[in-house]
């Protein structure tokens, strides 16, 4: 990715990656945390199921993820919305504040594909509910890790331009209505990373995620993001 940021809509502003399972290096501890065990360790049988299903995960096909960069000429930031040509994201003020100082935008999408979920479903229907649930949880963690991976690719691709990255924001979080998912994907080519969006806004495969990241010399990553948010009832609120 060597093109100058003043570029407009070139092939080099869109990148797709194929990420192998070993690259993501999911650990049993991360899966335990995602299930909810926090600092205490999971019961032995859960631990065993996690290890068994991580081996299944390791043999999975690579996962697809990618981003598109909208350069400063293509995007205008406002306190509660982002204007990308004809597309306006009504992100709300929390995200607006988080993107303060940004001049460009990256749209990120990642998918664990349909296979892991399907295998999980089959395991559940065969009476192996625990293994199936664990595999489903691994697929969720995989999507999160793909987004992390994309962020590091994005940082590497834009560092030479002196750009930094903001926090990552997803439709459906921080007051940004998930209904805008369709708009989000209208800025990416059809079937981007194998993802399609239903009229309900649901991405298929289910284990998929989308997010944006602000870019620019003055972009800022904030540590305690939840404290910025006024949604006291948010289930993932973490004021730590």
């Amino acid at each position: 990715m060597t093109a100058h940021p003043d570029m407009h809509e070139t092939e080099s502003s869109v990148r797709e990656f194929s990420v192998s399972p070993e690259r993501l290096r999911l650990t049993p501890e991360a899966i335990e945390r995602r299930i909810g065990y926090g600092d205490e360790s999971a019961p032995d049988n859960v631990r065993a199921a996690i290890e068994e299903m991580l081996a299944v995960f390791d043999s999975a096909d690579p996962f697809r993820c990618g981003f598109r960069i909208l350069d400063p000429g293509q995007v205008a930031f406002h306190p509660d919305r982002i204007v990308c040509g004809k597309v306006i994201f009504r992100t709300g003020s929390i995200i607006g504040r988080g993107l303060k100082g940004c001049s460009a935008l990256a749209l990120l999408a990642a998918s664990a594909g349909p296979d892991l979920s399907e295998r999980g479903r089959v395991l559940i229907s065969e009476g192996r509910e625990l293994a199936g649930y664990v595999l489903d949880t691994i697929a969720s963690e995989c999507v999160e890790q793909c987004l992390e991976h994309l962020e590091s690719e994005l940082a590497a691709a834009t560092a030479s331009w002196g750009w930094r990255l903001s926090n990552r924001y997803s439709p459906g979080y921080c007051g940004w209505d998930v209904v805008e998912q369709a708009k989000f994907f209208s800025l990416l080519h059809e079937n981007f990373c194998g993802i399609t969006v239903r009229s309900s806004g649901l991405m298929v495969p289910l284990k998929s995620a989308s997010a944006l990241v602000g870019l620019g010399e003055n972009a800022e990553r904030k540590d305690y993001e939840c404290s910025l948010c006024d949604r006291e009832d948010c289930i993932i609120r973490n004021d730590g």
Partner: protein
Amino acid sequence: MKETSSILQSIAQCIERGKVNRASPYPPDLRDRDGADELVRRAIDLGIDPQEILTDGLMTGMKVVGEEFRAKRIFVPEVLMAAKAMTAGMEHLRPFFASSQATHRGVMILGTVLGDLHDIGKRLVGMMVEGAGWEVIDLGTDVAPEDFVAAVERRPESVVGLSALLTTTMMNMKETVARLKEAHPETKIIIGGAPVTVAFAHEIGADAYAPDPPGAVDFLNSTVAEI
């Protein structure tokens, strides 16, 4: 009498701890002991009333599981193990339901609404509702309003449970509730899922909202008390 209460207590403990049968190595401290499978069989052989086995054994254990899950002292895997133990015990009671020697508290028709494919949370609700002595008819995910209506037509005594995980798909609950209430105004409907709120339940005319599976059980049990 003493033997009855001790075996019922052991059954409850097997559910609580997820001890399915003797062969199951989990939990390690109950290794090589009988599980829900063997104990329920033995209770029947001892002539204990099947309804009592269900209420004071299996359901008592599952109630504790619900409380522990709500308090975040246990997580989904433990609930799944408990449900598995419950199923193993219920297998032996099945013939008694057929002959009405044991009865369910009621019927719940459960499904994830149209447009939404989330399954696991809804399944957990189904498991705990079953563990509370209800029959559950799980219609699956992406269920159209007319399919809920048709299911109620087949079992008009049912309570309906709707699940959705996104604010967008949650909107399809509105249509489902409207269609159900139009066709069967007396049918009680409970809704749940991460973005759903009690205010939304009121807004769309659902009878209740539950934040978690034990909440759904509480509501269902309250409808029985009402009848």
